[in-house]
């Protein structure tokens, strides 16, 4: 691979590495403290999860869902309220997710089948669901104190009786790393059999080894803090499902097709209405799920929770290389975008940059990423 194509393919990963190193130096290494590394993903759990759903919406043609911050708040408020009046955790969770699913059906139907422009439909949803959330909360703050609810989302996996360092985390990391490597060899074998190679096998293995190294390093740091957080598992479950959905399933392919050329997609026997419906349904459902995570992590819910969270999810997608016109973008790319945003946030907080300047930096990064994407694609289009 030529240096220029390599740079282009992995721009965002390189940017992430550079930004990470930059803030590590700036904060005298504080960014690398086990606690900070562990918190990085937990603090951004809602971004990582909602960015998966937002990617689907964006794929269908650069459409976004503005209502997710409000849906998140509504789901969290509902859970908190139910828990506060003594409803068991399992029931509260089910009811909240059900409401999120109903919102998803509602918005998916309006956008897919009634052809309401997504921007307007979800703008209305943004007001509607925040309003409902405040009605449920009676404009108060409700604390979340149910133990089993909190345990389900915010505890750490710590074997009985052990006290840190939690080496079990490293064991899990190594097992995952080995599994990835074995799977890679298996898939290379399969590619050889079919007589079609995507890229050189050596390159594929090197790539896997780098990912393995990052995983093991990450679990080593986790073992020095409190072990593996349960929330990390929730994040991974969602991300893996969505990565698989978009890259390897027939229905995932439809999102790209509709975003690329809706008319051609329809004439190929694919119903675009269904594709829109599923995108917005899954988005709302993930927003509802994120509400549970955020509610548990913060430990209380108020009417302003989730304000502007939709913008974090949208920004992650665009920073992560999703096209503003739809039809292209991947879950791994979007995850890199979300983590990049998270590192910048955390780095600036640790460094102590005033809040107002943090906004300026975030805006600049988003703009730079999109400008870079458009300009570099334009150049390839010309040649």
């Amino acid at each position, binding site marked *: 691979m030529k240096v220029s194509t390599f740079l282009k393919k992995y721009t965002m990963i390189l940017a992430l590495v550079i930004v990470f190193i930059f803030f590590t130096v700036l904060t005298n290494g504080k960014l690398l403290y086990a606690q900070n590394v562990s918190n990085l993903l937990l603090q951004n759990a809602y971004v990582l999860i909602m960015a998966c759903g937002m990617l689907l919406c964006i794929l269908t043609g650069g459409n976004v869902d503005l209502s997710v911050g409000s849906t998140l708040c509504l789901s969290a408020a509902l859970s908190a309220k139910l828990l506060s009046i003594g409803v068991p955790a399992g029931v509260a969770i089910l009811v909240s997710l059900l409401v999120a699913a109903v919102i998803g059906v509602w918005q998916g139907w309006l956008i897919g089948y009634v052809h309401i422009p997504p921007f307007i439909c979800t703008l209305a949803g943004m007001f509607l669901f925040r309003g409902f959330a405040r009605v449920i909360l009676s404009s108060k703050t409700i604390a979340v104190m149910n133990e089993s609810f909190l345990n389900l989302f915010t505890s750490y996996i710590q074997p009985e009786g052990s006290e840190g360092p939690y080496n079990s985390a490293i064991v899990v990391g190594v097992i995952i790393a080995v599994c990835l490597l074995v799977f890679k060899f298996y898939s290379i074998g399969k590619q050889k059999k079919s007589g079609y190679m995507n890229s050189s096998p050596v390159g594929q293995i090197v790539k896997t080894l780098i990912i393995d190294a990052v995983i093991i390093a990450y679990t080593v740091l986790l073992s020095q803090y409190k072990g593996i957080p349960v929330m990390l598992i929730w994040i991974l479950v969602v991300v893996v499902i969505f990565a698989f959905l978009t890259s390897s399933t027939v229905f995932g392919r439809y999102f790209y097709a509709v975003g690329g050329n809706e008319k051609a997609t329809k004439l190929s026997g694919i119903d675009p209405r269904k594709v829109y419906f599923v995108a917005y349904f899954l988005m709302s459902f993930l927003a509802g799920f994120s509400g549970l995570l955020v509610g548990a992590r913060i430990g209380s819910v108020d009417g302003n929770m989730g304000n502007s969270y939709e913008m974090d999810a949208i920004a992650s997608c665009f920073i992560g290389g999703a096209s503003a016109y739809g*039809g292209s973008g991947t879950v791994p790319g979007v995850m890199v975008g979300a983590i990049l945003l998270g590192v910048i946030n955390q780095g600036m907080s640790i460094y102590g940059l005033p809040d107002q300047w943090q906004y300026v930096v975030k805006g600049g990064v988003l703009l730079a990423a999109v400008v870079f994407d458009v300009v570099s694609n334009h150049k390839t289009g010309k040649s």
Partner: protein
Amino acid sequence: MADYILEMKSITKLYPGVKALDNVNLQVERGEIHALVGENGAGKSTLMNVLSGTIPHGEYTGDIVYNGQECQFHNIHDSEKLGIVIIHQELALIPELTIAENMFLGNERKNSFGKINWNETYKQASEQMKRVGLKESSNVLIKDIGTGKQQLVEIAKALSKNVKLLILDEPTSSLNEEDSKMLLDMLLGFKKEGLTSIIITHKLNEVAYCADRITVVRDGSTIETMENPNHDIDEERIIKGMVGRELTDRYPAREHKIGKEVLFQVKNWEVYHPVYTEKCMAKNISFEVHKGEVVGFSGLQGAGRTELMMSLFGKSYGTKISGQEFINGQEVHLKNEHDAIEHGLAYATEDRKVNGLVLEDSIAWNTTMAKMSKISKRGIIDVNKENKVANEYVAAMKTKTPSVQQAVGNLSGGNQQKVLLSKWMFAEPDVLILDEPTRGIDVGAKYEIYGIINDMVAQGKAVIMVSSELPELLGMCDNIYVMNEGRLVGTFTAEDATQEKIMSAILSSKDKA
């Protein structure tokens, strides 16, 4: 010594890795119609982009001498100032603006404060429209007039710029024969008034009809310039120059083996316009297609052929659809496109870029799009299998591409068309409807596509071919149905049909109506 309005000398244009133009020389005499012919990707459009300043001076080497003066154009305004106007294949009109607004876009009639003088705008627009024979009011929106008339607006727009040298890139590719002839006659009229034109086209009968001289471009070089003083040049002679070999037969031979079984039958089909629901687009249509048969549909633009075919293909067009549809003797009620595909029907659109392909996606993705069940199990895609079948189709179709991962948008028109055909052949239909399968592609690629069609019917499938090019229908079809204004106005067998008979069927039906 001839009086040259334009001489392009030793023009060379390099793209990274490709020599798009290699030492090209072109001489255009004042007051002539000069045709530029060549296969897709030969470099015709690049050459015209150099001339118009779209490719600015400095990005190519060589000289442009216009009216005896050496010129260096840095953008399209520089060339337009001197009266060189180019009309691109894809029309550059804005649908939501009026004819007059489009005509003076970027060239507005305004006073010194920048306020647009609308009276002057509409008056001047009407004058130019009269010259091209447009009877519409100049405040009609572009979207409300047909493609043929839009092409005329483009020409009127060029005239309003005081054009001396008019360049037309494929002006008739989306026009029917009648509109095409009208346009060419208009060019001949302007020629008498002293206008020089360069016309790029794939339609060789048009070249013979209107061009005074013909320059052949092949692989980025000018091969030869032919004289055509009496407008009777042999088309085979031009083809020989274009492809560098003689295509002895423009339509590959096929054993006509029409089966007895009726594969596809339509009875009393009727369809109405989706928006103007009173407007009937196809009325009382009945026809049948046998196994191993190529059936042609001829007619003028707007005859209702595309609308008919799309409504047959799972109601993808129109409202108030009625009539019966039979596949393999069974009556079917196709609810949507998916249903149609499942029943063995396929429709390859006339507009591959808008309705056919996802341009930013790869060849592999486009190939499998209409029948993903073949490369997946329980909804999970087998990527290796997908790439393998895509490679097989690339090989079978002779699609020119470095890999099946290539985005379809980066391919030439002919290769895109092959991907579109691959996609529908991959869906394994019994009946394949091809709407204008060779529009805007070069002679060599056309020949290959005809061969593919022949292979399909040899496998016992049936092909319905909608085309505006009569010679193509005559060369390929076993039976030809003629449509006009939504009705069937004639049926001919291959032996029976001639261009004259088909045209007269259309025209006489017009008289009746």
